[in-house]
């Protein structure tokens, strides 16, 4: 069995035999709807936060007409884009063009099945939790590729190719920085990782957190790594030929992926649902929003990187640092006495600062040369 009841669902399993599919189906239906509503609401909140936050950071107002503080703007945008005409290019591969947004969206939604909103995941507290997340999120790439190829458009194809190059490169430092956390927590299950965080792992793993944040932002193509939809070069990248509801789905994927990465960062490094006074799910939502705010902040601060810089950053900066971080974490897990957590925190922060400074001295991105 890969599913286990979360929350207080033991009643279901007592009324019906555990093998009966009906009980499982009810559980599945109720919590799937809860998760979809959660994702949609937070994505709308994210869009509002991004547009208003970037507005403030760029010394302008942002959308402020609809509702208090422009809060209803994402709803109006959603309605607008849903009732738009759906255009498909004449030479497009119709089936692939239609399936691409669905293939991109489904895995993103499936990630939330294992995210613990409180003690115990909503749908399935998998024993292989974080491995499942990494595996499932790699399927989204296929959807992007389908969109790029199915549109029969050179810009779309170029955008999709860039996306795949980025995802394949950044997956490695991403997973290596996760392993540091798994080493300390001693489990792959997301809920076990949260339970192990008496000290949030961002303090024990500052370098790992930094690497995961950068690699995660690159993986979901947020600015400054938004090369695959670089507006000035590729029109809109892989979703150039999409309109109406399918475009809405891609837009949703973009922010749902940001939400997923924020949830994983919260779970792995920031103590997940744990926190004093407030209910666990509220702590979780607050932390997720803070992480996303930092993403918005980096987006409006940093300029977009070139494709060669993108690759160089992954292979020459993130990968060596992730390996060193893994080695140091392994040594500490084996040799450091449990009684001295504060010493290891100071040591790890010092190591992180020294390594980042050293590596930025050792190599500068591209040295102004352009080579791909």
């Amino acid at each position, binding site marked *: 069995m890969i599913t286990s009841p979360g929350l207080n669902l033991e009643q279901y399993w007592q009324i019906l035999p555990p*093998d009966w599919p009906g009980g499982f189906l009810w559980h599945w239906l109720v919590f799937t709807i809860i998760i979809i509503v959660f994702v949609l609401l937070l994505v709308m909140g994210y869009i509002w936060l991004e547009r208003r936050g970037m507005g403030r950071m760029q010394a302008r107002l942002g959308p402020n007409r609809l509702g208090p503080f422009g809060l209803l703007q994402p709803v109006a945008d959603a309605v607008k884009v849903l009732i738009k005409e759906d255009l498909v290019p004449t030479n497009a591969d119709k089936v692939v063009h239609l399936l691409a947004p669905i293939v991109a969206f489904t895995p993103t939604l499936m990630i939330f099945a294992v995210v613990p909103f409180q003690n115990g995941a909503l749908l399935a507290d998998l024993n292989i939790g974080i491995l499942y997340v990494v*595996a499932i999120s*790699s399927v989204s790439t296929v959807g992007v590729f389908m969109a790029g190829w199915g549109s029969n458009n050179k810009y779309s194809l170029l955008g999709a190719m860039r996306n*795949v190059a980025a995802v*394949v490169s950044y*997956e490695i430092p991403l997973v290596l920085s996760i392993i540091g956390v798994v080493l300390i927590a001693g489990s792959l299950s997301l809920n076990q990782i949260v339970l192990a965080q008496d000290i949030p792992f961002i303090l024990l793993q500052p370098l790992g957190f930094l690497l995961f944040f950068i690699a995660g932002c690159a993986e979901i193509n947020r600015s400054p790594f938004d090369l695959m939809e670089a507006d000035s070069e590729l029109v809109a990248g892989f979703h150039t030929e999409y309109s109406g509801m399918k475009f809405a789905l891609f837009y949703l994927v973009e922010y749902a992926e940001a939400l997923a990465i924020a949830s994983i960062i919260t779970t792995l490094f920031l103590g997940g649902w744990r926190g004093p006074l407030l209910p666990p799910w509220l702590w979780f939502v607050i932390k997720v929003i803070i992480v996303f705010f930092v993403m918005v902040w980096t987006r409006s601060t940093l300029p977009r990187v070139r494709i060669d810089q993108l690759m160089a950053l992954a292979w020459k900066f993130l990968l060596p640092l992730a390996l060193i971080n893994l080695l140091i974490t392994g040594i500490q897990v084996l040799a450091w006495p449990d009684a001295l957590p504060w010493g290891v925190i100071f040591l790890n922060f010092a190591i992180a600062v020294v390594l980042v400074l050293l590596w930025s001295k050792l190599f500068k991105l591209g040295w102004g040369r352009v080579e791909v």
Partner: protein
Amino acid sequence: MIGFDVAFWILAIIGVIAALMVVFLRNVFRSALSLILCFLSVAGIYFTLSADFLGAVQILVYVGGISVLIILAIMLTREVQRGSPSNKLRIPAFIVAIVFLGVVGYTLLNTPWQLSTAAPLEHTTANIASKLLGEGGFILPVEIAATLLLAAILGAIVLVREK
């Protein structure tokens, strides 16, 4: 175990149909997509057999890694916008495939399979780790296989490198 039976038959039918589509579709890109569907249904079968770690690795390696590489390779072929039509080697390929199918089928039917009576493991990861890294573990063969793959990659790079 009615749920598992239903799941098995759904996954098996999807897997076989996807595998047939890989062969019969004229469009290479669509073939690659059906291959991904086939990999996913195999991963689903692993999940129903309590091999959750293996299923996740199947998705990670085959769907996220190998399929993406296959698609990337297709992108580098000619006439990609028309789906790379196949060449004239269909009959020889059909013969080779039939012979291979015959060999595999003969082997499957004539092997005395050992059925384990042990119950499925509740937590697979810890057991895999102790098999891999514990006393008399399989870490050396795994490392040797990894080195072999690395050597193959280096060899390929040396072969295609421009002087």
